[in-house]
Each structure stands twice: as structure tokens, then as C-alpha cells.
């Protein structure tokens, strides 16, 4: 494994353990072979990846906050849902879809920063439970505010990519799916580059690893925590905006199932690993799509329980998740 890490320009800690890597490679081979045999299989796989990257994106938002504050933000999905409503409102005011899209990302960043500063920061230094309860309260608060402002009725929003369907080698692929995959991957890559190459990104990583030592070299950890919440909110907004067209309607419950899958994706990936959340999301998306189609007993109703049963099985075999490492720290 160390050999492989040396040959690739990736630190060893980012690679999963060898058996996990083998399973992932086997899964990829299985999907490729299946797709070349059956058009339906290929179609389901692509659709699965498209919904999977959305789970992964929201899961990544959860991981970001978990790494920085060791807390799961239960309000992440509702924050994303609120952002979709912001976009909806902007479009009502006459903005084009993409103008509204990018404005919403900016608003989401500010939204995340404000929530961290106003709601989370006062309880930050108390117990983890206190913060978790606050995020649960936030869930209910945002839900209530959105219903109060826009009502609980379903709304309709223009789809960003239209309903066009391409045929790639005989496999029908919706433009919407390609668009979703591209947008999420671009966002994740941008985020990765931010953490890897910028000073602020490095400061955020240091602050998450060892806040005390980071402050000694001059990192303003408190301000950067807020930036972290802002970035997580942006990722959530992307997930929300990409979920909406596949559900065809906008309602305050838009992100609730997605949040559950995002939890599953994050835990599957190892909760500490950003790449793991994305891989976990894609694996989950594809798995759900295939099992829903080929195992008629499951259908669309039992997808959620089956997903969690599978998650449970994976965690029984590898408790730290696919990309997680048992944390060993020298004292």
C-alpha cells in the first residue's frame, strides 16, 4: 500500500485499506461489464451516479463540519432546502436560472457563516450534545420559517438542463444527469484545490487537526470555523439545487430523504474522509438504483431500509467506514 501511495502523488492516508480498494475495483468492473451487456443496466448506473453525487455532496458538507467541530449538523439538509427556496425567489424576481444559481451559492455562504456565528458559536465550547441539540432545533426553525414564508404547498421551478436525452453508445442519458454529475464534481474539485493549495484552506485543515497548535502559528481558528460552515452550506445548496429538478417539485421536505442518504454516504465513507463521502454517495446511489430495479421485492418503497441494512453490514465488517482509519494518536 505504501508502495502504491509513493507511486501515485497521493498521501497514503488518503487511500483506503487494500481489501476496500479491491472491493471498489471489483464493483467498478462489475458495473462496466453489466453496462456493456445491458442498456437498462447502464442507464440505471448513470442515473445512480447522478443521484449519488448529490448524496455525496451533502455528505461532504456533513464531513466538513464534523471534521472541524466533531458534530453532525442535523440542519444541513434544511439549510440546503432553504437555499433552494432562495433561488426560487430570485427566479420569481426575474433572474435567469444561472444568475440565480450563482447568487444562491453566495447567499448560502453568508447563510452558513451567520448561522455559525449567531447560533453555534455561543454553545461551541459546551458539550457536543449541546451543539447537536442546537442543530436539531435549527432544523425545526428553518423548516418553520420556510413554510411560513413560502407555504407548504409544492412549487415548480424551471429545470436547469431541460429534458433533453442524449444517446451515448445506445444508452439513453438525460442531460439533467450529466449536468448534475459535472456540476457536483466541479464543486468538489474546487473545494479540494482550495484546501490543498490556498493558505486559508491549509489553516482550516490545521485548525481542524490541532486547534491549539494552529492558533500558535497565527491561524484565526474561530473565523475559519465560520468559513467552514459557509463552505458546507454552499455544498449543501449545490446538492439542493441539483435535487430539485429530479424531484420535479419544490417543497419544504425536499431534502429530508436526501439528508438520510447523505448521512449514510458520510458514514460509509468514514465520516472523517471527504473523498470517502463522495465515493460513499456514488456507491449508495448506484446500489439503490440497481437493487430497486432488479430486486422487485425492494421496489422503490423499501429502498431506504435496504440502504441502511447494507450500511449496517459494511460497518459490521469495517467499523471505521471505507476510507476511515482507526485514529491512533501518540500522546
Amino acid at each position: 500500500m505504501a508502495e502504491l501511495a509513493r507511486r501515485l502523488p497521493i498521501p497514503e492516508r488518503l487511500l483506503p485499506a487494500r481489501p476496500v480498494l479491491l472491493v471498489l475495483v471489483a464493483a467498478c468492473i462489475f458495473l462496466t461489464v453489466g453496462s456493456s451487456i445491458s442498456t437498462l443496466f447502464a442507464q440505471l448506473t448513470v442515473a445512480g451516479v447522478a443521484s449519488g453525487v448529490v448524496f455525496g455532496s451533502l455528505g461532504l458538507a456533513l464531513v466538513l463540519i464534523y471534521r472541524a467541530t466533531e458534530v453532525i449538523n442535523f440542519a444541513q439538509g434544511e439549510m440546503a432546502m432553504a437555499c433552494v427556496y432562495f433561488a426560487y425567489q430570485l427566479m420569481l424576481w426575474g433572474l435567469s436560472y444561472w444568475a440565480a444559481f450563482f447568487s444562491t451559492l453566495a447567499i448560502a455562504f453568508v447563510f452558513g457563516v451567520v448561522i455559525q456565528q449567531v447560533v453555534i458559536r455561543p454553545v461551541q465550547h459546551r458539550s457536543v450534545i449541546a451543539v447537536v441539540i442546537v442543530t436539531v432545533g435549527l432544523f425545526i426553525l428553518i423548516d418553520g420559517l420556510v413554510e411560513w414564508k413560502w407555504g407548504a404547498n409544492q412549487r415548480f421551478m424551471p429545470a436547469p438542463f431541460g429534458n433533453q436525452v442524449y444517446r451515448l453508445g445506445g444508452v439513453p442519458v438525460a442531460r439533467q444527469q450529466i449536468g448534475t454529475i459535472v456540476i457536483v464534481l466541479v464543486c468538489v474539485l474546487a473545494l479540494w484545490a482550495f484546501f490543498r493549495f490556498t493558505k486559508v484552506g491549509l489553516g482550516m485543515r490545521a485548525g481542524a487537526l490541532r486547534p491549539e497548535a494552529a492558533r500558535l502559528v497565527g491561524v484565526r481558528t474561530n473565523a475559519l470555523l465560520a468559513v467552514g460552515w459557509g463552505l458546507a452550506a454552499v455544498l449543501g445548496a449545490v446538492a439542493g439545487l441539483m435535487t430539485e429538478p429530479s424531484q420535479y417539485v419544490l417543497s419544504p421536505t425536499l431534502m429530508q430523504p436526501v439528508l438520510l442518504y447523505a448521512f449514510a454516504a458520510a458514514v460509509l465513507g468514514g465520516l472523517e474522509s471527504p473523498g470517502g463521502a463522495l465515493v460513499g454517495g456514488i456507491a449508495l446511489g448506484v446500489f439503490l438504483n440497481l437493487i430497486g430495479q432488479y430486486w422487485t421485492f425492494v421496489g422503490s418503497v423499501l429502498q431506504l431500509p435496504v440502504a441502511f441494512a447494507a450500511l449496517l453490514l459494511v460497518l459490521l465488517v469495517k467499523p471505521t467506514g471505507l476510507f476511515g482509519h482507526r485514529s491512533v494518536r501518540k500522546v
Partner: protein
Amino acid sequence: MTALLELNEVHARYGPVKALHGISLSVGEGEIAAVLGANGAGKTTTLRAISNTVEREGEVLLAGNALRGGPESVARLGVAHVPEGRGTFAELTVWENLRLGAYTRSGSLRDDFTRIGTYFPWLQERKHQQAGTLSGGEQQMLALARAFMQRPRLLLLDEPSLGLAPLLVTEVFRIIKELNESEGVTVLVVEQNAHIALQLAQAVYVLEVGRVALSGPSAELREHESIRRSYLGY
């Protein structure tokens, strides 16, 4: 010689436990000063009082100005604190650790990295190695190099000899001396190893349960047999 760092009647506490009972000391510009003492004498707390990572009262002056604000502000004023356990980020690479050292500065790091290479030649080829995989001695060197990237006026070192083999200790102290002489960095070092600290430092403060029990030029302290026996234990 003007004093770069001055502590006047500094008290510090960890919750209800008082650790410093009015410490006064001063370190001249370009000087190396050592703080010695037994375990629990308040050596580490003295450094923490300077970088403000402990509840403190009293006056802490850097070049005549009071050091206020949290550790991040103190770092921005040119104080590099290498804490107990070195404060290196084991999960990050050597290069990322060095970049963090220069966090408070803007501009290119290439020149500094080249200059660091003259003190720590091996760092160049280990640039992309994870810091946690370095040996104890190398990590201590990395901590020094990181502090140097900050271009500090004042370098606070907490037991740089801890856990190192004797040969490495000599090496680390040689580099500290060199940094002090050729870069003009003022150093305040906390040590258990009184023997080597007395050789390195010009001024020495000996702490006993949170108070300065004895201070003076190191040459003087080295010569007094009785002082050496009773306070420094060798």
C-alpha cells in the same frame, strides 16, 4: 541592551490552580535566555503566559508594547512558540507544516525555504513526506524550521531536548545557536537539561514553584558550585 521581552509580576492559573506567583524577567534583543527548574515549577506556564494560552494577570511587554489578544494575535506580532510536544501537524506534509509556519506572512516562501535548507539540508528531499513519519529528532528540527519560517523576533522553545538522544540534543542546540547568531532571533528556551542550557544561554532564570528563585548571567551561575548543586542538580 534593550529588552525585547519583559514580564512584570505575571500571575497565571489553570482554573482554580495557581501556577505562577508573580514572575518578572526580561530578555534582551538578540539574546538567548533560558528558564530552568524542576517539573511543575512553572516553566511551560511562563511560555504559555507570553503567548496567552493560559489565564494570566500582570504585564507582558514585547518591545515595550503590551501583548494582548489570543495566541493568534501574539503570533502575528512576531512571537513563534514551539510548544511542548513540538506542535507539528503529524497528518500534514513537511511542506505544509512549513507553509503553516509562514501563515502570518504574505509573499513568496521560496527564499525562506532555500535559507532553511542551509540549516536543515535534509528537509528539501523530504518535502512531501508526512510529518508524522519523521523521527523524533527530525520532528524537533521541523518544528524549529517551521518557527523560522515565521521570521519571528522572539522564539519561544519548550524543552527542545525532550525525548532526544544526547547527540541529537547537541545538534538541535547548535542550530538554535546558529539561528540566533546569524538571523538575530531572540530566544527564550525552557529546559530540564540545565547543563546544555547553561552553555547556550547568556541569561538564566531558575524557577521554583511559580517564582523566580534565582537569576543571572549563565557564566556566573555555572561557577557557583553551591548554586549549581542546590538548584540545578549537577
